[in-house]
């Protein structure tokens, strides 16, 4: 590693009590593509934001070409040659301007740029940038009229035009098609040859196989694995990222009850295979897979937020095609969405009001809310889940993340359901809260079918009777949670087995 363009040594970062980065050491060598992998919340984005000057780090230091580097603003980082393409595409483009202005934005900002805009010069400059990237695009078009993939390419092209020495790409292909992604990879190949150090963040195994020279796995704010000997150990990288330092929870696989949910030839997208699946009463099923494998999509379909491409869903023997969450709830299908801050918590409400949100009607005779009834429900869920709080009237914001999540889970366990969907129920939750929630889910599972969607394998192992693996919208594996072969599960998660085996998998 004699040509390490950028070295990160012992970086730490905390947001309040939350230690997001706990001593990260990382080198980004020149002329190589370093892939950074990590589950949600592992700290990847925070690390990127420190490198590009959005956040300041608490401890440790960064070297850029042997010199200390601690940017206090994004423009400083760019001046030093560290250019970042962020995950949120709209951070990279300005939709109300045309393509040319977007591509030339930095030149417009540069010192010595004239007061008036020379349209002709602007457009020819933009064409040069687009041309260098092999981007065939009308520079006079409004960015607002372009689709997501084109916007993404423009954001990337703009980053390239800054002649980066260190280029950071945060999930750049998440909205690109295979051909567009390949165009990007060709460009990255070219940049790699010219000696640019590239840090590439992605979950997509196919991308990683195509582009990676080295892989670094991150987990819980630390580097959990570095892989740089050819051939790269992709499976090891996924294992290091998901981590299965085995847990103390023993699952006794329960006896199944009657069929609750049946999926018949359900297809989530053009590329995904038909999914056939039956879930039974008194069964906790975990569906695992990487980001973008279709977990959230499947949950959305079952909860009436999206329509499947084709196929049929049956609930308790009846055809089931909810058009809205309201209909799904009325049919007894409840869903705990992932990302509680934006999809769950009502920040101005107290614990009680948050907990009873979906079922106000049960607590409001003639529409008038009965605070007593609400409190009784809330108190029973607080007891059941072991929520640490002063009283049911506390503001939700006074609770820790784990306890907030317990309230979100309690919201859907306070009423009897046919099918309970929990999308990443352990996201941003400490280990104790995770145990409490898991225990509570299993204890109450008798009268319903339960599906837990979890990217982290040990979360699935901790809670499920049966584990299914999704890969690129297809079901690629099914395991009974007894003496499970972790190697084969991980192989399926990372798509290793997808090449060999046709993805027809019908779960009984």
């Amino acid at each position, binding site marked *: 590693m004699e040509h390490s363009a950028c070295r990160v040594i012992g970086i730490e970062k905390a947001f*309040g009590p939350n230690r997001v980065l706990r001593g990260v050491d990382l080198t980004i060598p020149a002329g190589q593509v370093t892939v950074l992998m990590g589950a949600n919340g592992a700290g990847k984005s925070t690390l990127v934001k420190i490198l590009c000057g959005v956040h300041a780090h608490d401890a440790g230091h960064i070297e850029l070409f042997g010199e200390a580097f601690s940017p206090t603003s994004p423009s400083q980082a760019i001046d030093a040659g560290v250019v970042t393409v962020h995950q949120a595409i709209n951070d990279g483009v300005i939709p109300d301007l045309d393509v040319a202005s977007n591509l030339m934005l930095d030149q417009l900002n540069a010192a010595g740029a004239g007061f008036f805009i020379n349209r002709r010069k602007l457009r020819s400059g933009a064409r040069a940038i687009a041309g260098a990237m092999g981007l065939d695009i009308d520079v006079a078009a409004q960015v607002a009229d372009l689709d997501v993939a084109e916007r993404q390419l423009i954001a990337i092209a703009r980053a390239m035009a800054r002649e980066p020495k260190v280029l950071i790409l945060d999930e750049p292909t998440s909205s690109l098609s295979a051909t567009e992604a390949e165009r990007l990879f060709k460009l990255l190949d070219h940049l790699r040859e010219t000696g640019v150090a590239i840090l590439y963040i992605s979950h997509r195994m196919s991308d990683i196989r195509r582009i990676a020279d080295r892989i670094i796995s991150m987990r819980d704010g630390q580097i959990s694995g570095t892989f740089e000997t050819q051939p790269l150990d992709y499976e090891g990288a996924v294992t290091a990222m998901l981590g299965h330092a085995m847990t103390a929870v023993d699952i006794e696989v329960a006896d199944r009850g009657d069929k609750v949910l049946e999926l018949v030839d359900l297809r989530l997208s053009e590329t995904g295979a038909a999914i056939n699946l039956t879930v039974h009463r008194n069964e906790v099923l975990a569906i695992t897979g990487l980001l973008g494998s279709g977990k959230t999509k499947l949950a959305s379909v079952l909860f009436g937020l999206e329509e499947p491409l084709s196929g049929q869903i049956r609930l308790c023997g009846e055809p089931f095609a909810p058009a809205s969450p*309201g209909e799904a709830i*009325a049919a007894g299908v409840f869903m705990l969405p992932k990302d509680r801050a934006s999809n769950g*918590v009502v920040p101005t409400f107290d614990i009680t009001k948050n907990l009873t*949100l979906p079922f106000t009607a049960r607590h409001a005779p003639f*529409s008038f809310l009965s605070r007593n009834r609400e409190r009784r429900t809330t108190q029973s869920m607080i007891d059941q889940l072991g929520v640490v709080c002063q009283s049911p009237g506390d503001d939700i914001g006074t609770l820790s993340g784990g306890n907030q999540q317990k309230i979100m889970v309690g919201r859907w366990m306070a009423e009897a359901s046919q099918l309970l969907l929990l999308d990443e129920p352990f996201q*941003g939750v*400490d280990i*104790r809260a995770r145990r409490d929630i898991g225990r509570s889910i299993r204890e109450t599972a008798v009268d319903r079918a339960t599906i837990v969607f979890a990217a982290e394998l040990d979360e699935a192992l901790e809670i499920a009777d049966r584990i299914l693996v999704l890969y690129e919208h297809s079901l690629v594996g099914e395991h009974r949670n007894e003496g499970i072969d972790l190697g084969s599960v991980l192989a399926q998660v990372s798509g290793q087995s997808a090449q060999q085996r046709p993805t027809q998998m019908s779960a009984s």
Partner: protein
Amino acid sequence: MTTDTQASRPVPPPVDRPQTLVNLAVRYGFLCLLLGLIVFFSLAAPGFAGPRSAAFIFQSVAITGILALGVTCTLVVGGFDLSIGSVATSALMLSAYMMVVLEQSAFVAVLACLIMGAFVGLINGLLIVRMRVPDLLATLGMMFLLIGLQRIPTEGRSISTGMTLPGGEVAEGTFSAAFLWLGRHRFDFVLEDLIPVPVVVFLIVGVLVWVFLELTRHGRLMYAIGSNERATALAGTNVNRYKITAYMISGVMASIGGILLAARLGRGDIASGNNLLLDSVAAALIGFAVLGVAKPNAFGTAIGALFVGVLLQGLTMMNAPYYTQDFVKGAVLVVALMFTFALSTRRRGGGH
């Protein structure tokens, strides 16, 4: 951010205890200020303290207050309704037109106005929910549309008995006594002929809106929508329906205000009601500060309207010139907003 994997997490410390004084100030400061103002004016301005003066203050804020209660409902769902002023003046013109030109009864006139208000609210709601027009723009557009529309039937003239219509004939209809009663009758209370009907309507509407927002599940869900629309939708709430309902409530409230204004004036005065929008929005925003809740609420809105009324009445009785009124209102609003947001965000700072 996410993931805390410490094996155990301490019980969250009791939040905000050291700041009790600040809390008290935020919570009751505004009410104390109102009380202080009343005491001050009672001492400084002879004649301020007394039932007649109180009734006058209430009367001066009743119509503004009713509109403000409507706009409060739209603020609760995270929206805004700029069209209330023009809905009120449209109701004013419509009721006059119904009675004077079409010679309809008071009942029909009132009914027509209420339906008009609900319909405008429905259109506003559909524009915002279905067409995805931002709330400010949709209701601003509606405001212009209505200001123009209400002038077309009379070619821009005010409506009164005996006026010449565009067709040449003379309008024979009159404001019926029952209609004028709505604006001019005074109920006996302590003194004879003390409390005007609009004040009674204001109080009833205030109580109803308060009950709806604070005690019913529908109000609860509307607050939830205003706080986190996505989470509320994912809890199975029909968000669009509640939003449209909020705009319809706002439209109906504004039309009630317009009816009362028409009944007080006794003619379809084209120039009336210019200040209604700004005054009522100010009252609703001042309402954020009352009780320090930093959110729209019916009680706060009513108090906010009264606060402005008390201040203006007091200053007038102390011979402050009329042209300082808007300045005073603006100052109150700015101070109230500072009060609310600076102090209460600090108070909430401990949370997540």
